[in-house]
């Protein structure tokens, strides 16, 4: 794994709960090269956020992490807190889902931006201010100088997310984790924010992990997509290959659940029936089997491992993969 900037090996996260151990992330393997984008897709509670927290080592105190998180040749899970702290912010940055809560409500935008810059880049106040204004301009905020003196509550949601992105980008990170960056935003703003992220990523040649529940979001923007279900990666492929030919019934079902423009109004959406399995009660077989329309005998007894498809770099975990020439509705 020499070329990879980030390589996650057999990462599992367990959270002790009153109802037993909750396996939030189950033996996940992923790699990401510098300058590339990995999309992580899955429904709520499938372990996407826990995976991102595991990479950043920001798990809840009681969580148990196993496996290796190799970032630029270092295992983050075994790093001293002090060196980890220096890595965060400078090399690793994150944009959270809700810009309403990810900015400190009682500090001005200028204070929040400039303190991060001063802390990591060791600039004086004037230089930090200049850099803050550059950053705010880069993320498309008009009149950045006035914004610096304002508080987060004086900005709109999209504006706040742009500011959060500016803070994350302030120290030129090598890896940016965007944890559902557009979920809390208006649809019209979503595309702008995603385009902004893509543009800044290209310009800075950083790697990005784009976490979302919307396959449409990753479609045009990620180089590779990993689909997660119940803590496991169930399908992983380069984006074009995935949309051309998906093998996992879950991916298919996710895609089918996206409303389409050409269908007539009031057509019921093909929702995925049932609910995700209780993560504290692991099932012996494939965790998607109870909801899968292709499930047969073996699916309920054994867990399928990730196996390679014909296309290079395409992996799926299914006993009865979809063998169709073209994906559904892609």
């Amino acid at each position, binding site marked *: 794994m020499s070329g990879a900037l980030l390589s996650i090996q057999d990462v599992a996260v367990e959270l002790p709960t009153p109802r037993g151990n909750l396996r939030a992330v189950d033996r996940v393997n992923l790699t990401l090269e510098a300058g590339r984008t990995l999309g992580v897709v899955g429904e709520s509670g499938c372990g996407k956020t826990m995976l991102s927290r595991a990479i*950043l080592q*920001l798990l809840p*105190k009681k969580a148990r992490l196993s496996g290796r998180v190799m970032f630029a040749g270092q295992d983050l899970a075994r790093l001293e807190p002090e060196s980890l*702290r*220096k*890595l*965060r*912010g*400078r090399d*690793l*940055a*994150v944009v*959270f*889902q*809700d810009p*309403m*809560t*990810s*900015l*400190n*409500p*009682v*500090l001005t935008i200028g204070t929040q931006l400039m*303190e*991060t810059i001063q*802390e*990591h880049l060791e600039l004086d106040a004037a230089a930090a201010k200049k850099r803050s204004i550059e950053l705010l301009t880069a993320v498309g905020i*008009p*009149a950045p100088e*006035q*914004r610096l003196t*304002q*508080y987060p*509550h*004086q900005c709109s949601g999209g504006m706040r997310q742009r500011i*959060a992105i500016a*803070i*994350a980008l302030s120290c030129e990170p090598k890896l940016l984790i965007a944890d559902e960056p557009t979920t809390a935003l208006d649809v*019209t703003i979503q*595309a*702008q924010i995603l*385009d902004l992220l893509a543009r800044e990523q290209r310009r800075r040649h950083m790697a990005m992990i784009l976490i979302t529940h919307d396959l*449409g979001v990753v*479609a*045009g923007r990620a180089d590779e997509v990993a689909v997660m279900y119940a803590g496991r990666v169930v399908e992983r492929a380069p984006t074009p290959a995935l949309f051309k030919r998906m093998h996992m019934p879950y991916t298919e079902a996710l895609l089918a659940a996206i409303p389409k423009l050409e269908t007539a109004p009031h057509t019921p959406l093909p929702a995925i029936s049932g609910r995700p399995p209780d993560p504290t009660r692991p099932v012996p077989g494939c965790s998607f089997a109870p909801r899968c329309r292709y499930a047969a005998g073996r699916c309920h007894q054994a867990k399928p491992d990730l196996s390679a498809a014909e296309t290079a770099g395409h992996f799926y975990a299914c006993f009865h993969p979809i063998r169709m020439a073209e994906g559904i509705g892609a």
Partner: protein
Amino acid sequence: MATLELSLPEEVEQPLQKKRRLGFLFWFAICWIVIIFALAILAPILPLQNPVDMDMLERRAWFSTEHWLGTDGLGRDELARLIFGARVSLTVGLCAPLIGLTVGGALGLLAGYFRGRFETLVVGSMDVLLAFPPLIFALAVVAYLGQSIPNLTFILGFLGIPAFMRVSRAATLTLARREFVIAAEALGATHARILLRELLPNVFLPLFAFFLLGVAVTIVVEGSLSFLGLGVPPPMASWGSMIGEGRESLEVAPRLAFLPAFAMFVTVLAFNLVGDTLRALTDPRQGAL
């Protein structure tokens, strides 16, 4: 995905500075506090009579040009005693909650942020402190260390620590779960930085409002302690001890108890009003978080 990029020249709206009407009562309260403070600070250089000089021929004298507010049961000038009493009441009233604010606030912040054993220890010891009868504690300290203003301040400040700790811890607990704290950690902030720069500015608002209420309560408590004879040592005046002394002549000269009571009442009211207004001013922003 085709996106419609709207690049209209966005006008930068200046943040709307809402003119809040603070109201007559607020300004009245501010005026009263300023006057009382000015009088208390300037007391030694004001042309006042000595508050401990007795004039046995002029006991309980009515208002006159010589004694503007009359004299008390021992013929001491009532106005001078009121103003010198304000010095004691305000010193104790401000310093004691300050002890609570600093110690209790810091403990609550640390307990709410670090949780675990430390929190259990802090909360447990505060419960012990709360369960201990405050009057017995005050009596014990006064008996061992003697009756003086620093001791009185220490007792009241110490007894205020649990309340401040609780306010601070409760605020920290809700804030420490907020994403901006995780975001700060993700940006490589140290614990000290998160505590001082991220959490403290947020926790400070409720703590300060509580502090102003604490000032009001402490002035009253100091009064009660002085009334019980546990407060300042006798020749010195404080509002509480003046009420206590005035009680003896309540039937002949009720003003001796009512004048300091009125001063205390208006001061406490003023602090409460200012505290409430400040809380209301900062609340909408809290609500918009």
